[in-house]
């Protein structure tokens, strides 16, 4: 754009601009502390209405009291002084939404913070919106492929489901979420990653990783960093879901990750205590359940009449010393449609992803699993359950009958097979081939320590030689007898070469 052009454009904009003058409601700041402002006046204000302070910072009215209003300040509160004018805007808190936000990093107010310039938007969505009603919904029947074998086979997630990822610190919770985003390439899915109270360095790492994997082409990051006020952390997940709803309303499928809701609850506790709301269990306010239930309820799958879009939510909760019976974990477990439970012990034993298959469940995902996967996963679940039972038992003695030994060996191979390094999602067809080989006992002769090597080799071999089976899975989601026979033959051939 040339200089003349810029001047011309500016002139046009200024000529067309009309300042509107209308009577506005005002109040005055009585006190400001820790991101909360008490404001006198503003007698007609609505709950969750946006206000503007005289220095341009925005706020949200949360507490409407007899003679004052409690406002959370969304921004720098150090420049707000006592007696400052506060204007009511008449609008409920809303954020800009647009397709152009894809690939960008936004703050909790939907403004870009990645230094790539402004995002032009002409639409806004309310941050707080009542979730879709019963009549506009449809049951979950399409899978979300995370590319992680342990999850896609045993704890399947469907489009529109809410699946909790729960575990102690450093157990790979975020890694699962990031892998799931990376695997959405070409799966017709928009991803929203909401980072709540995370270190900026961690977010930067995630952003770089997603960009390297080409995932920023369909991902939006919403971030409320740990250096920002608690109010930003409080609204960030609602902002994320408001953006996700924009895509869902357009009939698209969205995957949203809240990383993590424990920090969200802590931010809300801070705000509530500062607003002098009565504390309850663990000092959380009484409405902390509603805080998360109204957020997660907005994840849904709409039926055809309403566009057929969906929002799949993967909230993350961090537990302390594996205590899943604490207040916030139990709340979110009861709200979601299942949980993926990660354990420190497993993580250090080298089982990564450290998913505890026994404690993890998916209450609705089963009906979304593709037919072929359902077939192999059923046997796998049984194998693993028997293995867990026998494992403890077998430590007492070595005199075990052949059937038990076989069962133990199979279990060991199943555990080995479900291990998967980070950032290496596997497509569902390949997952089915390897799991098929496992559950049919075709791997029983392969030594446990060689399972990984075998798996990689088998996938490459099948990709080159086993076109029928793969084609059947891709198109019909299930194999035919002919395909199965060919696959068996191919696995046998590969095994013969591998073991020799």
């Amino acid at each position, binding site marked *: 754009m040339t200089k003349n052009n810029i001047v011309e454009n*500016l002139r046009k*904009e*200024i000529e067309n*601009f009309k*300042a*509107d*003058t*209308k*009577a*506005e*409601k*005002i*109040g005055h700041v009585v006190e400001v502390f820790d991101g909360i402002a008490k404001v006198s*006046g*503003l*007698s*007609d204000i609505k709950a969750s209405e946006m206000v503007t302070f005289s220095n341009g910072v925005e706020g949200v009215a949360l507490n409407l*009291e*007899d*003679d004052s209003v409690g406002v959370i300040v969304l921004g720098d509160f150090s420049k707000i002084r006592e007696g400052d*004018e506060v*204007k009511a805007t008449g609008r409920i808190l809303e954020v800009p939404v647009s397709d152009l936000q894809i690939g960008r990093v936004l703050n909790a107010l939907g403004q870009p913070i990645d230094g790539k310039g*402004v995002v*032009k938007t002409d639409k806004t969505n309310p941050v707080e919106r009542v979730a879709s009603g019963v009549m506009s919904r449809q049951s979950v029947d399409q899978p979300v492929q995370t590319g992680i074998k342990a999850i896609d086979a045993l704890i399947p997630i469907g489009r529109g489901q809410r699946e909790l990822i729960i575990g102690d610190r450093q157990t790979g919770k975020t890694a699962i979420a990031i892998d799931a985003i990376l695997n959405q390439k070409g799966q017709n899915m928009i991803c929203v990653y909401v980072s709540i109270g995370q270190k900026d360095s961690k977010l930067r790492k995630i952003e770089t990783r997603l960009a390297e994997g080409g995932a920023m082409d369909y991902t939006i990051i919403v971030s409320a960093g740990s250096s920002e006020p608690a109010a930003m952390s409080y609204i960030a997940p609602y902002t994320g879901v408001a953006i996700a709803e924009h895509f869902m309303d357009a009939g698209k499928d969205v995957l949203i990750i809240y990383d993590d809701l424990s920090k969200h609850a802590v931010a809300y506790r801070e705000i509530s205590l500062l607003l002098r709301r009565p504390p309850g269990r663990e000092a959380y306010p009484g409405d902390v359940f509603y805080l998360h239930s109204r957020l997660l309820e907005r994840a849904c799958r709409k039926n055809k009449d309403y566009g057929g879009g969906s929002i799949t939510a993967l909230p993350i909760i961090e537990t302390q010393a594996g205590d899943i019976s604490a207040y916030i974990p139990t709340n979110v477990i009861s709200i979601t449609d299942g949980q993926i439970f990660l354990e420190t012990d497993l993580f250090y034993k080298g089982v990564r992803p450290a998913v505890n298959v026994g404690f993890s469940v998916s209450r609705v995902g089963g009906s979304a699993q593709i037919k072929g996967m359902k077939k192999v996963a059923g046997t796998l679940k049984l194998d693993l359950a028997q293995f867990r039972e026998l494992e403890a038992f077998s430590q007492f003695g070595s005199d075990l009958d052949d059937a038990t030994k076989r069962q133990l060996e199979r279990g060991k191979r199943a555990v080995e097979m479900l291990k998967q390094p980070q950032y290496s999602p596997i497509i569902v067809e390949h997952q089915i081939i390897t799991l098929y080989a496992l559950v049919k006992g075709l791997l029983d002769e392969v030594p446990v320590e060689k399972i990984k090597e075998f798996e990689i080799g088998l996938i490459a071999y099948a990709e080159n030689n086993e076109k029928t089976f793969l084609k059947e899975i891709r198109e019909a989601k299930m194999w035919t007898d002919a395909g199965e026979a060919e696959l068996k033959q191919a696995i046998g051939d590969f095994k013969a070469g591998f073991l020799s």
Partner: protein
Amino acid sequence: MAKISVQNIAQAISDFTKGKSGSDLDIACKETLKFLNKKKLLNRSNEILDSVGKIIDKEDGVVRIKVLSAKNLDGHQKKEIEENIKQKYGAKEIVSEYMEDKELLGGMKIIIGEEILDTTYRNKLNQLATHLINK
């Protein structure tokens, strides 16, 4: 027990002193003071008195306005403003305060109770700046 708000107290004081004059009003004021002292509310007396003032103004149809302008207004302009506000708010009486503020550049800002009407150039420039940034 629920907290009694400043507005409740102000309403009570206004009702209590309504229609009283002379020695009756003196007694009423003394009683009010005693009550405020007993309830340890004297440190909030300014707030309470402001509220009482607002309640009485409302009953008497008095509207208080504050006009800020870049240049001093002349008598004719002031009268016009007061007439307009009287009509708009259905007021019996207007109590006005005029102030000069060069920062506003032009136009004026009228504050009526909790409402504000801002026609200043400063405000328009701010609006233009936001518009251009968002464009």
